[in-house]
């Protein structure tokens, strides 16, 4: 389906007030509510590279392109985009932006939105428009490209995204360590102050099948080093010394397997064993992340559920997966959701929840600028054509 066909489809839908559900990889579908009664517009075939000049370090792709395809294309030119998407073979660029997905490397390289330099989009009435361009600095006009980030496809349909790309690090190494009893806080502090700075770092409790590393009495850590070849060995010595000062006697290194291990870390929160499970992610300040993780753990323990925790040490995100008894899950998950939001008001569902998903609090604490968002939705999509019911700002679920 080309741009003109999409434009025509939206114009027709708008003229007849017929809602449209935008469909891509579906990886982030757990992060919003289900679309209400709408015709599906499948964007998965829109995977072309629209412009790529490697020497400019910029690329423009259609938004149905998957994160894995994009990574492969860039890797051939020793470049990358730190999208950090879970399920990269399925996750589309449009989905990543619509969900405002941001991963563990954002403290180092920025979020996907930070690397977004322009876009082409279709408005609800089918009008094709664009913002930004293919230059890395551009302050001509409003940044509509980034405005659409986080819109869950409810404000406009992103057709093309332009990014600035980054040179691929020469070396990638993952450090895995089991934490002896009583070392977690010191490890957390040491990791935050490592030089060179980690590209990503996690404290992990659980996820024993999904994530590498042997569990310790106080959980385990995984740290990602991305650097020049010249720095690799000295950084390894320095990091091991720093972790030793935190009381961690041994670290295991992954080189050839680092990429696969990192991928498993990204995928883990979205991997659920069945319908009796739920994953949340709650943003927090790094200084408060461990306390929040403990609070969330207490809540889940009260419901006698199995839990896995993942704390993003550099950014403060706390991710938790709760798995309940298949027979009772549907009955208790609502109470769990309430209790969890009491402790972590900003927690957001990533995946799961089964048949009661849409009755749970998908979004957590709503933004202060809710009125502005609702007004934007009403202005850009007055007939509620785009992904109706998906979000908190279109009023349908308010």
């Amino acid at each position, binding site marked *: 389906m080309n741009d003109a066909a999409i434009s025509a489809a939206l114009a027709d839908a708008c003229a007849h007030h017929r809602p449209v559900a935008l469909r891509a990889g579906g990886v982030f579908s757990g992060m919003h509510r289900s679309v209400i009664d709408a015709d599906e517009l499948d964007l998965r075939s829109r995977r072309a590279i629209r412009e790529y000049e490697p020497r400019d*370090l910029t690329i423009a792709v259609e938004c149905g392109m998957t994160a894995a395809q994009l990574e492969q294309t860039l890797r051939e030119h020793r470049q990358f985009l730190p999208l950090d998407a879970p399920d990269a073979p399925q996750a589309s660029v449009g989905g990543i932006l619509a969900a405002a997905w941001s991963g563990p490397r954002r403290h180092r390289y920025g979020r996907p939105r930070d690397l977004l330099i322009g876009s082409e989009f279709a408005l609800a009435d089918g009008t094709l428009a664009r913002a930004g361009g293919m230059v890395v*600095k551009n302050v001509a006009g*409003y940044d509509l490209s980034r405005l659409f980030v986080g819109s869950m496809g409810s404000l406009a349909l992103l057709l093309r995204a332009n990014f600035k790309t980054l040179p691929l690090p020469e070396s990638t190494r993952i450090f895995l360590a089991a934490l002896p009893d009583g070392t977690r806080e010191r490890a957390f502090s040491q990791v935050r102050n490592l030089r060179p700075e980690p590209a990503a770092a996690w404290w992990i409790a659980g996820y024993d099948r999904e994530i590498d590393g042997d569990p310790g009495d106080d959980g385990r850590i995984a740290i990602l080093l991305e650097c020049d070849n010249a720095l690799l060995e000295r950084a390894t010595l320095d990091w091991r010394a720093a972790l030793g000062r935190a009381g961690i006697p041994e670290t295991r290194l992954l080189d050839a397997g680092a990429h696969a291990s990192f991928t498993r870390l990204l995928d883990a929160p979205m991997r659920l064993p069945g319908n009796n499970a739920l994953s949340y992610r709650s943003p927090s300040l790094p200084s408060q992340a461990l306390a929040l993780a403990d609070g969330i753990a207490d809540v889940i323990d009260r419901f006698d559920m199995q839990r896995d925790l993942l704390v993003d040490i550099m950014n403060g995100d706390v991710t938790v997966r709760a798995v309940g008894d298949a027979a009772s899950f549907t009955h208790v998950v609502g109470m769990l959701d309430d209790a969890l939001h009491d402790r972590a008001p900003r927690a957001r569902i990533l995946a799961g929840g089964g048949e009661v998903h849409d009755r749970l609090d998908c979004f957590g604490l709503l*933004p*202060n600028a809710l009125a502005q968002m609702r*007004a934007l939705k009403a202005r850009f999509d007055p007939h509620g054509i785009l992904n109706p019911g998906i979000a908190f700002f279109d009023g349908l679920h308010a």
Partner: protein
Amino acid sequence: MLIERLIEALGAEAVKTSPEDLACYSFDAYSQGVLPSAVVLPSSAAQVSAVVKIARDLEEPIIARGSGTGLCGGAAPARAGVVLSFARMNQLIELDIENRRARIAPGLVNLQLSERIASTGFFYAPDPASQRASTIGGNIATNAGGPHCLAYGTTVNHVLALEIVDERGECFTTAVEDLGYDLTALLVGSEGTLGIVTSAWVRLLRIPPTTGVWLAAFPSIESASEAVSAIVGAGIVPTALEMMDATIVRAVESAYAAGYPADAAAVLLVESSGEPEEVASADAAIARIARAHGATKWQAATSAEQREALWRGRKGAAGAIGRIAPNYYTQDVCVPRTRLPEMLATVDDAAKQHGIVVGNVFHAGDGNLHPLLLYDKREKRQVAAVIEIGNIVLARAVELGGTISGEHGVGIEKRNGMSMVYRTEDLAAMANVRDLFDPHALLNPEKIFPSGISCREMRT
């Protein structure tokens, strides 16, 4: 009525109405000679809110203003109104080193933030050349860049949250972490047309352990710009990659004795920061590329003083030009990095054709050019020539896939250039946002959008 109500709300000492005061707040680097009705200096978000409510009641435009260092008239009144100066809202409100962030009031001068927190080992990355004077609020309004945004990104990449007073005088907040639309990004770079920033959380970065600064001299500006393309094309992103041509080098040497080779046709100033091994790698790789493109000199700054001197020369280039011409006009365009040689050739050809001397000093690594056109404003032919060259440069930048403003904003000066970059549909989508946030067109009116077309007329 306006003045009385403002005095009642803020006190007489915070309201300026003398002709001299009004004149001082009527321009930045661009002026239409329009005086504001009043200038106010609020001390709090509540006072900003009060001013906005009064201005709205009386249908007076509201123009937020930092230090007035902009180039395009973004802080200059277009049709009278109340200028809101943030000179008294200049505090570092909260410093949270543990979480690498700071909350600032919009009037805080950019460089002062980094200077005040230097002892903590952190800094604020966006560094426009005006950073000694420009405010972070003004930087937010224009999404300001600077030499180091090559590696660190522009202001939008460093703003975490905003407190905004809207056109009704009501306060709301946005944060990058918020659910939903990225209003933070929308507001950054909106030049005070969607709301008025009254405080911001900004991101702080750790000061790198090692910084290397090098200077490369080239026999021609073409060879220097080709070296820039080759460096970036090789996947090397230094912290900064700046170019100066012979006109600028001579002016800077004359003014600052910065250590630039006065006989060079072009000079690249290169900075790389990070771990010592990374800086050494960058040194070797960039030197190799520079020499392969004809560099006649590759010189490292060996001390902090030398580094400082080289940067002082770069950041003071515009000031140094004042020694060789009574007036200069700075253009700001950005092109894809591989198109730099073509863009520079256009600038050179246009300047020669019109008999105008041009000095090029710019963020080469970003493809962000700043040709300085030297002229005497008393000479009508020169003024006309400079305007014509400016238009040629804008048109060529767009033709090469670039944009009409890389980091200085649109303001009044470039509003008609927006139609060169965007189609009516694109502008209408932006105007729809403008109309929503400012339905009475009182927030910094007659900026950004092309003249003769109002937001309402452009609404789809």
